[in-house]
């Protein structure tokens, strides 16, 4: 399984700090992600994985440090934020589909209103993305009429329809029944094969082993260890990663 040549740096974090009131949630996170790279983020609960990934598209504000996405710095400038959000797709644990819109309307909403596409063009793209996640026949249904796995795949298609350069996944399979997890992971693997830059918080170690270029281990608001998956799983260097791995692997 030859992983493709990686491109230039597309995400740069320098000493990112975030506080929730008094609580120091991110403690100087620094790392870079290259174009086409698949990064899996793991770590114990409450370690700040979600918080970090959500600062990358400004769902959470960071208070100090620098985040540069595809050459644009994330700061209080609303235009920068909008620009970055256009290029960064996100998939949530709870799907967050819009229940009052059909699957197709869910997907075409942002291309039409943000990119300014015509309805025809947006629907063409929508069908393309639905085919990519293998549910083109569900286009006319409402989210409430779909299974969890189908809903999550619609959420992926919805993010992809904006033709983002980066995809963020925050525990995309945690709310799913076991038999539906595979269909979502397959869709993610497909994306990785197509060369998408992916940052995924997930507990699916199989996915991390086979698809990721790099595993980032988070603890207490910072990156404790990062390495290629094989090296990380076979030979974790840090005490806390060893402990964490022993806990989840002997589960």
């Amino acid at each position, binding site marked *: 399984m030859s992983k493709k040549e990686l491109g230039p740096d597309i995400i740069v974090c320098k000493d990112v700090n975030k506080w929730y009131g008094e609580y120091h949630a991110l403690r100087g996170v620094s790392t870079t992600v290259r174009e086409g790279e698949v990064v899996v983020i793991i770590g114990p609960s409450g370690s700040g994985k979600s918080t970090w990934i959500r600062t990358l*598209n400004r*769902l959470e504000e960071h208070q100090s440090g620098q985040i540069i996405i595809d050459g644009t710095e994330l700061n209080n400038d609303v235009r920068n934020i*909008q620009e970055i*959000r*256009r290029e*960064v*797709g*996100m998939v*949530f644990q*709870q799907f*967050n*589909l*819009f*229940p*009052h819109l*059909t699957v197709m309307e869910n997907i075409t*909403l*942002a291309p039409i*209103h*943000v990119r300014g596409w015509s309805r025809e063009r947006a629907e063409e793209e929508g069908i393309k993305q639905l085919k990519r996640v293998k549910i083109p026949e569900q286009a006319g*249904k*409402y989210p*409430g*009429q779909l299974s969890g796995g189908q809903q999550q795949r619609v*959420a992926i298609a*919805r*993010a992809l329809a*904006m033709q983002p350069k980066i995809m963020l996944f925050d525990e995309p399979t945690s709310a799913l029944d076991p038999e539906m997890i595979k269909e979502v992971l397959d869709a993610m693997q497909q994306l990785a094969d197509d060369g998408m830059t992916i940052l995924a918080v997930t507990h699916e170690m199989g996915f991390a082993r086979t698809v990721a270029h790099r595993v980032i281990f988070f603890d207490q608001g910072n990156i404790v260890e990062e390495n290629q998956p094989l090296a990380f799983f076979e030979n974790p260097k840090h005490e806390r990663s060893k402990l964490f791995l022993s806990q989840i692997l002997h589960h």
Partner: protein
Amino acid sequence: MTTITKNVRPPEVPRLDINHWLRNQVFSNIWYTLFAFVLIGLNGLVIQSGFTAQPIKLAFSYAPNGQVTALGNLILTVTSGPFLTSAVIILWLIGAGLVIYSATQHRWTSVSHWLKDSLFTGFFGALTTLLLTIIIVFSLRAMLAWGFFGAEFSSDPKVVELIRPNTPGAVWGIVGANLQLFAIGRYPTEAGWRALLCLVIVMVLAALSLFAWNFGSPLIKFRRPLVYAWLFTIPLTYGILYGLPGNETGPMMVVKTDLWGGFLLTVVLSVTSIVLSFPFGLLLALGRRSQTKGVPYLSVWGFILMAIYWLLGNYPSESATYVIPVIFRNPPTVNVTLSPFMYVALITALVVGIFWLVGHYLEGNLIKTFCTVYIELVRGVPLITVLFMANIMLPIFLPKGVEIDNLLRVVVGLIMFSAAYLAEIVRGGLQSIPKGQYEAAVALGLSTTQSMRLIILPQALRAVIPAMVGDFIGLFKDTSLVSIVGLFDLLKIAQSAISQPEWLGLQRETYVFVAIVYWVCSFSMSLASQRLEKNLGVGKY
């Protein structure tokens, strides 16, 4: 072996065990037994009073000159107490018999099944059915006796004057003779068609809206134009009702708002305040949830412009001396003479200065504070107070020389009042939308405004349709309070109809009629809302 016999056991032998049934239903508990006696006693009472009920009195048309016609005789027989009571009892016995028969035979037809499930659900159910049926039947008899069989329908005052002393029931003539008064009040007859036209416009718009907000309706793309049409209808109908300025007579004559009245006024008031309080309430709800810190610049400029406008109407034309009270001083006043220029400069400096201070030193959320204070203030006082305030206070805030007529002031009061309640309802809806919806929307690149308009509000408003329509129905009925500030709405017009000499003392007829009109309108709104809910809810879950 035992298991097999169990599985193939034949259906139970149909048998109604009276002892078992009584023990189960009536004597299972001392309170049940007591209750059974009470029920039986009550039934006995109503049956007895049913059999001994007085015959109803017939109106002149069924019994001219005391001679009861054949039709009159039939009505007397059918509505007589013994006939009605025995009919109810016989029907009840037939029903009970049918259910008992079906129970013993274990054979249920759809009729007997329905009877068992709804009217004869057991010993107590059956007795309650009998009791309530007799009560309902005799209430209906009383209503018919008053409103129909004993009533006179002639609208001719001369005829009514003659037969009124011998009329046992209602004299509906007051409604028939005053229909125009009820409909448009003192609005001139020759311009009455304009009122009718406005009513038709509103009805057509309402019907179109009902269809356009139907799920999968071909009119869906007209939703936005319809919203604008509603907003445009308000000035349009006001224009139509007011007439062309300069015309003293003729079909387009000017009709001052103090002549608008009756149902017309009620509709004008409620449609205007419902349509306009909606956007206002929406803004208040959003404002109360706003996260903006400080003072938004747009509103600062808006207030400054308003202040300047106010000044232009109010500034003194020549130098004037103002007496300013100062405490702890003898004499306790100082006299200050200001030229017109100084006066304007001083007020402007004051307004700008306040905003500058607030903008720089008050980092709080001004929009939120304003909306919260507004909502809590308005919700804390009765509508009548708001109407009085609108009537008395509003002129004070206007520039000199600008006069607003009574109707408009009242409408402003109604809008302000309703918006505060609506805002809280909408806020409840907004609160019910999970945060993830907003996050997903902005993560896709939608702006805050777009997320609100496309994602949050459609879901939030849908969730609160019943509460909102409840508020609108309340507002519709509350328009009857405007009579207190001198407007002649339907209810007030009805009161004035009662005081006409030829119809003196016909309160009951008038109020029943007015109640029916209010009920029909409110119930239509309620039906429309149920339809809307059903249509918009499709596919949601």
